[in-house]
């Protein structure tokens, strides 16, 4: 199976390759009919015409097809890159440029290789394709799979940073925190504020953003969640409070940064070729490295330090932990701080992966975070890690078979299916599902 793949448009150098004015073509047509390679222009009154050029040079023998209304015709361009196809009706037709007849390394960069063309007031219409340097490599399905797989791992690791915090909060307090998504956005926006609006160098801005994220988590716990815990508010009520908080914060972000998309500085567009046609940017590699290091540190913290062990003890049984002399409130405070810092980091990395920062960016992965922690087993930190990587892989790899605007659907469907057969998730314990 061969699949044509194009490089991302923002990276390809756009070359305006065709300037074909209908006026010029009609002039040619009246002088010498043979100047453009033509078909059907004698039989029909209406025709499409164009001029295929790349970087100023005409391209010969490029196949152009017209279809529509039961009529089909095709023609190849002449030595000057010109073509002309007559059509029977003054209607819409699909005009296709066969990309496999272009020279190697040249593709249609703007729009599709097939486009809908229609006539204006005249009997002729110019149809031009913008060609550019690009990779229309026919990538083997295996190479594509590897590339999506690596992207999926990258996305999964980012998701894990956010999901572990949400999962620890759920484990220690029972709260499904819908506002966790806004902590992700908060980290990204703080990085934006300090690296673009102020502007400080990135290696200063990102630590500041992380510290502020951690402080944000602490503030939310101190101002909102701890008083509510003291008040003994039920978990469903807490969940709806977190929804209100999520809405309020999301629109506060929009209030300050508006509805547009911002970019963080320092993204490297250069591709590192790994093997075959698999490429990664330096940013991708760095992002994966940071994620893995931080996740290892969190794992060490959970398994080897006193506070980490206390956290797991509270997740298992809060009253027993409290009775054994663990200061539950303090641990929960630390979990909020840690969770918010991790979410903030995930937001910054995700801003490079998406790419871009937007007021509702966190909300768009909230469900994937929930899917990840539910898949892994609610309240288990390592379950959240496994669940995130599964979700990340599903989202990226599934685009091999399903349209990319449906890529989140795959992950969500799997979430529902898993709940059917194993409601407690991958690492969860039976008793949690009640």
């Amino acid at each position: 199976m061969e699949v044509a793949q194009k490089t991302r448009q923002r990276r390809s150098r756009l070359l305006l390759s065709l300037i074909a004015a209908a006026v010029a073509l009609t002039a040619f047509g009246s002088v010498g009919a043979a100047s453009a390679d033509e078909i059907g222009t004698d039989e029909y009154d209406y025709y499409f015409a164009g001029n295929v050029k790349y970087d100023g040079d005409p391209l010969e023998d490029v196949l152009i097809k017209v279809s529509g209304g039961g009529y089909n015709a095709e023609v190849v361009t002449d030595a000057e890159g010109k073509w002309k196809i007559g059509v029977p009706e003054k209607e819409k037709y699909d005009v296709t440029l066969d990309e496999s007849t272009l020279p190697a390394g040249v593709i249609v960069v703007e729009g599709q290789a097939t486009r809908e063309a229609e006539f204006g007031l005249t009997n002729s219409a110019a149809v031009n394709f913008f060609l550019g340097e690009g990779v229309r490599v026919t990538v083997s399905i295996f190479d594509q799979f590897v590339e999506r797989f690596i992207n999926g791992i990258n996305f999964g690791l980012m998701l894990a940073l956010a999901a572990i915090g949400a999962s620890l909060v759920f484990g220690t307090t029972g709260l499904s925190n819908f506002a966790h998504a806004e902590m992700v956005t908060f980290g990204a926006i703080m990085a934006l504020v300090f690296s673009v609006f102020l502007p400080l160098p990135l290696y200063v801005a990102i630590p500041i953003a992380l510290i502020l994220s951690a402080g944000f988590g602490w503030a939310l716990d101190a101002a909102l969640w701890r008083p509510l815990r003291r008040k003994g508010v039920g978990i469903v009520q807490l969940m709806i409070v977190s929804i209100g908080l999520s809405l309020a914060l999301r629109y506060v972000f929009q209030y300050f940064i508006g509805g547009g998309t911002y970019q963080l500085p320092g993204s490297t567009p250069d591709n590192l070729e790994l093997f075959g046609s698999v490429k990664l940017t330096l940013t991708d590699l760095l992002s994966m490295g940071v994620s893995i290091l931080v996740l290892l540190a969190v794992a060490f913290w959970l398994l080897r330090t006193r506070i980490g062990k206390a956290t797991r003890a509270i997740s298992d049984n809060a009253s027993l932990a409290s009775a054994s002399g663990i200061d539950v409130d303090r641990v929960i405070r630390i979990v909020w701080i840690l969770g918010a810092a991790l979410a903030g980091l995930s937001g910054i990395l995700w801003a490079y992966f998406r790419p871009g920062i937007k007021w509702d960016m966190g909300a768009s992965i909230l469900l994937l975070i929930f899917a990840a922690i539910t898949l892994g087993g609610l309240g288990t930190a390592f379950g959240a890690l496994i669940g995130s990587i599964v979700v990340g892989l599903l989202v990226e790899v599934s685009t091999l078979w399903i349209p990319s605007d449906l890529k989140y659907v795959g992950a969500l469907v799997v979430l529902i299916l898993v709940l059917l057969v194993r409601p407690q998730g991958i690492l969860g314990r039976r008793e949690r599902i009640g």
Partner: protein
Amino acid sequence: MDWGTILSNTAAWLISPETIAYALAALGLAIHFGYTGLLNFGQAGFMAIGAYGYAISILSFDLPWWVGIIVGILGSVVFAFLLGIPTLRLRADYLAIVTIAAAEIVRLLFTTQAFDEYTNSADGLGNYHAGFRAANPFTFEGSVGFGPWVYNANQWWVRLFGILLVVVAALIVWALMRSPWGRVIKGIREDEDAVRALGKNVFAYKMQSLIIGGIFGALGGVVMALPSAVVPSVYVTSLTFFLYTILLLGGAATVFGPIVGSIIFWVIMAFLSNVLPALVQVGALPFMTTIQAGVLRYILVGVALMLIVIFRPQGIFGNKKELTFVK
């Protein structure tokens, strides 16, 4: 500032199709959450299915408008089964996450390019009004009404039809909740195990509740589609959150709560969307732009939702004893 225009624009929202649609969907949510204790966060999905079921039946299959409504209802019943079978045995917060995920799946399926032929993807659907308007009992020309409520025949017909649906739905909820069925439903909310111990099939009752509330959601979607168009970006998770705000504002386990909640919600939203930009323009709020003034009201919705849940979880009409949130 032109207070006359502001107040008249605000008053128009008392009977706007949006207000009616939200009231219907919130009534459905009252059955789910208020009476049965089901945390359905997928009401936007039910509404989307109602709206698209109606529009696609008319546009793609040339069915009469009332068949379109029935298709929307059947679609929501199927959706309720798909949603309920895997999740109704699970704990409340699982249901919340699965329903919200399912509603997003529905929205993404309606938005994707893959089914463009039927759904027109992100652009949404329109121009399906002929059948509904032909059934209009009003025959007057031009606009009729008084005060801020001056509408033409088609606009009145949409409002009349919507209000009729709300009245019928409210009667159904009222009758159901004083029936033995309603007592079982409320029993499930209070203590599922006790009801099971009495020999009731809790799963079946929850499923029935999910279906009935889902049908109301679908009807809300139809009313939303009646006046203008079906746009997929409306049916996002925020829609469900707004419905929860409405429901909790009015009172979750009440018949009138969702209706009055919807009216209050939309009237306040309309008032703010008129008054805030006006205040900015006369320079009373020097620190914000008119765009920011538009965003401010959504911040207030979020804050209001938090305050209601913390300080008055039973809402305006509710009885505190009636609302035991699932612990």
